[in-house]
């Protein structure tokens, strides 16, 4: 009995000591300098950063996988932070395939010789899309587009089509110029600009916001979109466009064009790819499809050189 108590006490005392974890010896004195290795024969693919990189990746990585497999090309998605960076990288030939809105496209086509070879069909089934003017649902002072005069306006980006160019043309068409607004601001970058516009209006920081249609669905998981009211919709313009940089091998462009053409929304695997990319079809396109956009830019006074 006595030994039992001693054993119990010893157990209680020494159980608390535990065992030390085994450690791996590492010599920190041996060091190296980091040098990035560029991959050869890479076709770079960039999605105009209207959303965050994560959304961009989420939307397009399956498509890129499909294109890699379908074309046999080493296609890699890269993520420029801003619209300007995107455009510059096209000009620097760091972006081989640019997926951008028509406003950006007319700029890179004008500035860097990019050529459109395909454009998408929206989930609405239309090959065109519109911009939306939104305000808080409980903002009683804004009922019509005329009520937007003297209000604080936040747009996506000066280079945004649905988020700035289309609404600005819409305002001008209704006799409201930039001077009529109390304030015009652009969403801070990089990335996620469309969402930031919605969130700014939702937060009440700005009276109205301009976004491309479909954005409210993107933010529906983050905010109660019933608190947002659409004041007005712009006219439709050609949708997002795939453009090849200047001097990109035509074979590559052809392979891509064929691969895009094969995408069938009714095909199960393709549907997943297309739903992720938020369009239902990719159709062939040419530069002239975007002349209406060029005219709009001219009308609102946007210079393609800027």
């Amino acid at each position, binding site marked *: 009995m006595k030994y039992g108590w001693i054993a119990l006490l010893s157990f*209680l005392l020494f159980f*608390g000591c*535990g065992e030390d974890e085994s450690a791996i010896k590492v010599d920190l004195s041996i*060091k190296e300098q980091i040098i990035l290795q560029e991959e050869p024969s890479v076709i770079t693919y960039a999605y105009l950063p209207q959303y965050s990189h994560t959304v961009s990746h989420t939307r397009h990585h399956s498509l890129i996988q499909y294109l890699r497999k379908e074309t046999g090309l080493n296609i890699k998605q890269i993520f420029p*932070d801003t619209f300007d960076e995107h455009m510059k990288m096209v000009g620097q030939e760091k972006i081989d395939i640019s997926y951008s809105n028509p406003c950006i496209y007319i700029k890179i086509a004008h500035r860097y010789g990019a050529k459109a070879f395909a454009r998408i069909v929206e989930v609405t089934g239309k090959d065109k899309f519109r911009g939306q003017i939104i305000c808080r649902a409980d903002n009683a002072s804004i009922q019509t587009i005329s009520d937007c005069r003297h209000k604080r306006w936040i747009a996506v980006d000066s280079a945004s089509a649905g988020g700035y160019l289309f609404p600005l043309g819409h305002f001008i068409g209704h006799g409201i110029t930039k001077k009529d607004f109390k304030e015009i601001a652009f969403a801070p970058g990089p990335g996620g600009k469309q969402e930031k516009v919605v969130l700014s209006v939702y937060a009440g920081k700005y009276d109205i916001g301009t976004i491309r249609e479909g954005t409210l669905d993107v933010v529906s998981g983050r905010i109660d979109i019933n608190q947002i009211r659409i004041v007005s919709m712009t006219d439709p313009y050609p949708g997002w466009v795939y453009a090849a940089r200047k001097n990109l091998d035509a074979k590559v462009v052809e392979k891509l064009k064929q691969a895009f053409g094969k995408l069938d929304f009714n095909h199960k695997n393709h549907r997943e790819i297309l739903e992720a990319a938020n369009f239902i079809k990719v159709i062939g396109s040419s530069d002239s499809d975007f002349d209406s956009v060029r005219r709009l830019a001219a009308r609102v006074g946007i210079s393609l050189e800027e």
Partner: protein
Amino acid sequence: MKLGFRGKIILSFFSLLLIHGLVIFFWVSHVVKESMLEELKNRGISIGISLSARMVEPILAMDFLRMKVLVDETVQLGDDIFYTFVLDNKGNPLIHTFKDGFPVGLKAANTVSGNQKGSIQLLDTGDQLIFDCAVPVIINDNRLGTLRVGLFQTRAEKVVNKIMISVVVTIILAILIAGVIGMLLLNPVTRSIKKFYESSEQALRGNLDVRTAPMLKKNCWDIMQCHQIECPAYKNYHHRCWYLAGTLCPECVEGEYARTIDSCQQCQVYKRCSGDEIQTLAESFDAMTLSLKGNLSDLKSAESILNEQKALLQMILDAIPDFISLQDHEGRYISINRAFCEMLDKDKEDIVGRVNNDLFSGTLADHYNREDRKILETGIPLVKENRVPGSKGPKWLHVVKIPVSEANDQVKGLVCSGRDITQLKAVQEQLTQAQKMESVGRLAAGVAHEINTPLGIILGYAQLVLEDVEKDGQIYEDVATIVKQTKHCSKIVADLLNFSHSRESNIIVFNINEAVEEVLGMVEHTFSLNHVIIKYEYDKNPLLMKGDKEKLKQVFINLLNNAFDAIKENGSICVNTGIGKTQNEIKISISDTGAGIAKENINKIFEPFYTTKGPGEGTGLGLSVTFGIIKEHNGTIKVYSPPLSGDKEEGGAQFIVALPSGLNTKKGEQNG
């Protein structure tokens, strides 16, 4: 040094607290250390996961500046973070926080798969122990790379040590506080136990007036609003009412504690006044000593009574002339009386506890043992008369041995009672002899009656013949001899008749002096012829008594004749009369200067036909007749040889006759 109860309790208490503290310390240290390390690991993983999520966009954008800012900011989160770096999906470092190059050894030191939340590996750099946390950077199932965060284990241990110091201080404080509180709580207990010890010591020393329990604050008479001062519980501040017998509360059940306690436990007094276990113990101890005191008092009283009874019984036993003994079933003497001691001529202490073999000779002891064994085995009492040797000659004992049985009829021992019947035996012998003599007397009286007539005729004719013959002749002498012998025969016959036939008494009141004087007048002349002088001295007062004067005169004649026969010639006879020991007793003394009576014959002289005289001189019936007459008058006769007043060398005998006067005479009347 020997520890007391309080010391032992305190030592045990502190030992337990210390052991408890040590166990807690080791457990807490183990748990805290494990928890801290686990927390550290979790922190590393959390930082990694957080940074991994934030690192996705810079990696996608290959924005090294943002990556650098993020890893540097992470390292600055706490001084326990040693490093942070990012490996691309091929395991090559993209960005890190090391100042002068990336340590190559870290690349493969910890790996994590894409489906893992994170991986932790302890690294030993030689100077430090580092927890390396690896977290995959993933977007849409695409592994972009691996984020690694290094945390100092040593610094975590320092935190653990600080915590443990706090724990030790806390435990010591807790032990001290618990010890102080425990001692404060222990004080009443040890005080009570000390009181118990003192009380039990007092009780052991015989002082049962102990007060172990504290004074009561609530009392039954207050609760029940009772004013019965006769109740033993009333104003009894030291004993609870449920421990006391004979309480007068109407709710109380009569009886002993065991009977009443169940009822008492339902009483509101019990519910309000009963204390904790120690108080209950103290109260029950006091009640026990009180009860013990009462019982001891009863016991002493009973012992006193028992001792008195025992002494009384022993006194009775000792006063009984019979000897009595009690033996156990092994024959050992348990109790005896004084007569038994005297019989064995031993002290009581020398007899009690011993057996027959210790007290009697071998043969006798064996004989007694056989007797005792038979009685114990059969249970049949033994009655016997036993002749035993004694210091003053053989003794006759009447012995009764009776078995003593227990309640279950088992023989426990035996009681032996014995009586010295030596005298009784002698009387029995005398009685037998007397009966024999009475028969002989009656026979002789019958014969004498038949002989008396022929003797009278022979005497008459012999006297006629004597008158007719010559006085000088031979015939005359012969006839004279016939006449003489015939007269002698007639006297024998007359004595026989006197002895056997009680004549009708003629009771009168007469002066004994006169009766003596008449007798002396008859014999004085005859005695003087042989020069025997009679000296007499009468009481100056007349000694009146009620009796048969003639018979008493016969007594005096017989005594005087015996005195004369003893003297034969040249002597004196002294006769005195007077008052005896009482006024109603008359004493007559007749002493002579004769040959006296031999000592061995003194007891036989009153037997009939016993005589020391020669043939034809005495019948042996004189003193027997005398004795009979005195007895008839309820008197006594004593004989002394030599006389009480005479010279023992000169011999002689003295007869003292004491006779009751038979009159209710007062001294004044006697004197007047």
